[in-house]
């Protein structure tokens, strides 16, 4: 078997911005002194006049983006998820969400896979925060292909969008000619009848691997990739729950307020189902290599396999 290609979705983001920059003249990119890390630096190289470095002032950056959007530009604001969704939460809510301005938030370095920087920079709360803002679309792509498609979909959608990207290089799983990104539509990646694993972001590839391990034990797991957490593909979630009974959610995010909560919100109202939420269990992260952290917090294939098997 050939080596699986690995790319960090932040890299995909930077590359997609360049592509979209050629197509949309009114696309502008804002950063807060992290262009090298968020990969908007790639866009800066191609379109220096449309790359605005706001300095280390995320709240102001979001407000500037609101003003740009109010005057016809399509601004992408970038920082680490911690600062874009965390520090600037109220600016996103009041200056972008409330007036429903066409601002795209490209947040990188989400989750514990930030690695060595540790807990202060590992945002496991951004999905929860962004999901509560009325009208906000929340997307967490699973790989390079999906991340690039998500950027385009975000542009085509008129209104605020939160895009969540990672620092860690992750396997490319959607590299197929018939791949299509539909905002708000989940993707069934593996059929199964015993349990449904609903995953997002880098946990999708891990869940697929876990499903193969479960199969060897005679457990037939269905795997769904939810790239759009809001609006959630409720129809698909309900149908899968009906089909397999048990549901497991997997995300590199707190079990409070993220994909797991969104799925539970949906199922508790429509089809009460036993749900196991795999994620960060109401705790802060810590320093360490990303892969080791993902293993320690049980978000790799091995961890997912063990939890699903015991469920």
């Amino acid at each position, binding site marked *: 078997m050939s080596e699986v290609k690995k790319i960090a979705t932040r890299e995909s983001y930077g590359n997609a911005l360049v592509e979209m920059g050629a197509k949309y003249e009114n696309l502008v990119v804002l950063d807060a002194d992290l262009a090298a890390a968020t990969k908007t630096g790639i866009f800066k190289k191609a379109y220096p006049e*449309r790359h605005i470095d706001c300095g280390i*002032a995320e*709240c*102001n950056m979001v*407000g*500037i983006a609101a*003003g740009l959007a109010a005057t016809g*530009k399509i601004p992408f604001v970038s920082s680490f998820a911690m600062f874009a969704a965390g520090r600037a939460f109220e600016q996103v809510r*009041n*200056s972008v969400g409330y007036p429903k301005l066409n601002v795209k938030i490209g947040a990188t370095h989400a989750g514990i896979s930030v690695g060595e920087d540790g807990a202060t920079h590992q945002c496991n709360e951004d999905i929860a925060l962004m999901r509560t803002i009325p009208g906000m679309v929340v997307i967490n792509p699973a790989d390079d292909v999906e991340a690039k498609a998500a950027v385009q979909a975000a542009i085509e959608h008129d209104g605020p969008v939160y895009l969540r990207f990672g620092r860690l290089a992750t396997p490319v799983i959607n590299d197929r000619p018939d791949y299509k990104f539909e905002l708000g539509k989940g993707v069934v990646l593996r059929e199964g009848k015993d349990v449904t694993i609903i995953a997002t972001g880098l946990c999708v590839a891990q869940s697929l691997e876990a499903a193969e391990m479960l199969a060897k034990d005679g457990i037939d797991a269905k795997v769904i990739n939810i790239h759009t957490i809001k609006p959630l593909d409720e129809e698909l979630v309900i149908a899968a729950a009906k089909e397999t009974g048990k549901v497991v959610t997997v995300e590199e995010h707190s079990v409070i307020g993220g994909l797991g909560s969104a799925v539970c919100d949906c199922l508790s109202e429509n089809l009460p189902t036993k749900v196991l939420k795999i994620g960060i269990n109401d705790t802060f992260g810590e320093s360490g290599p990303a892969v080791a952290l993902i293993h320690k917090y049980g978000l790799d294939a091995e961890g997912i396999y063990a939890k699903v098997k015991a469920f």
Partner: protein
Amino acid sequence: MEVNMNKTELQKTANEVRKGIVTAVHSAKAGHPGGSLSAADIFTYLYFEEMNIDPKDPKKADRDRFVLSKGHTAPGLYSALAQRGYFPVEDLKTLRHLGSYLQGHPDMKHIPGVDMSSGSLGQGISAAVGMALSAKLSNESYRVYTLLGDGEIQEGQVWEASMFAGHRKLDNLVVMVDNNGLQIDGKIDDVCSPYPIGDKFKAFNFHVIENVDAHDFDAIKAAFDEARQTKGQPTAIIFKSTKGKGVSFMENQAGWHGKAPNDEEYATAMADLEKVGEALCQK
């Protein structure tokens, strides 16, 4: 759509704007009359003299923009917009009522003439900076105005935005501070002094025009003319104003920051303003 008014006409219009403020807040039984009245002459000058706008085409692309960063003084903005013809003056009585488009704080989605939703202090100036930057990026000639409270500048975001505006030399941006000296908890220099205000903007590379009498149209005009002449840096105009200006019992009273007059107080306030109006008619 230019409206060229003489000073007396501007004073008369501002007096009508003040009546609208008092009427709206009285009808809402809530709202912020103090800072609306202190800025009434500024609103009037902006919408009747300074800005390139058209009430019949509120969204025209090349219009000048205004962002009310001190969004709680929405009654002042709404009253000026109504006087200018964006919507009926009569509608001011629906302020803050359930189902009214005149929300407690400016709402760009539903109110004709409102260029940015605002109200959470410190945020409007950033949006205004973004609009000014946008004009520069696409070589458009519109200008952007934003009005801040003197208490509001305690918010750190104001200085993030100012640093950026100065750095980017946004000479199409005018930042105004309504320095009425009072905030909810008392005098601004007792609560947490933002003084010296002008020096702070100077330090952020603004052209600063200080001690402008916010109730003297000659002074207001001179300040805006100077801002228009200023190239290569944004302008900050620090207006010296009287909170509650025009209503005797509200003047210089922090207590009237966010309180509505009862029926009796409303009658007194309107009588004060009628008197001013009559005196202006003698001119």
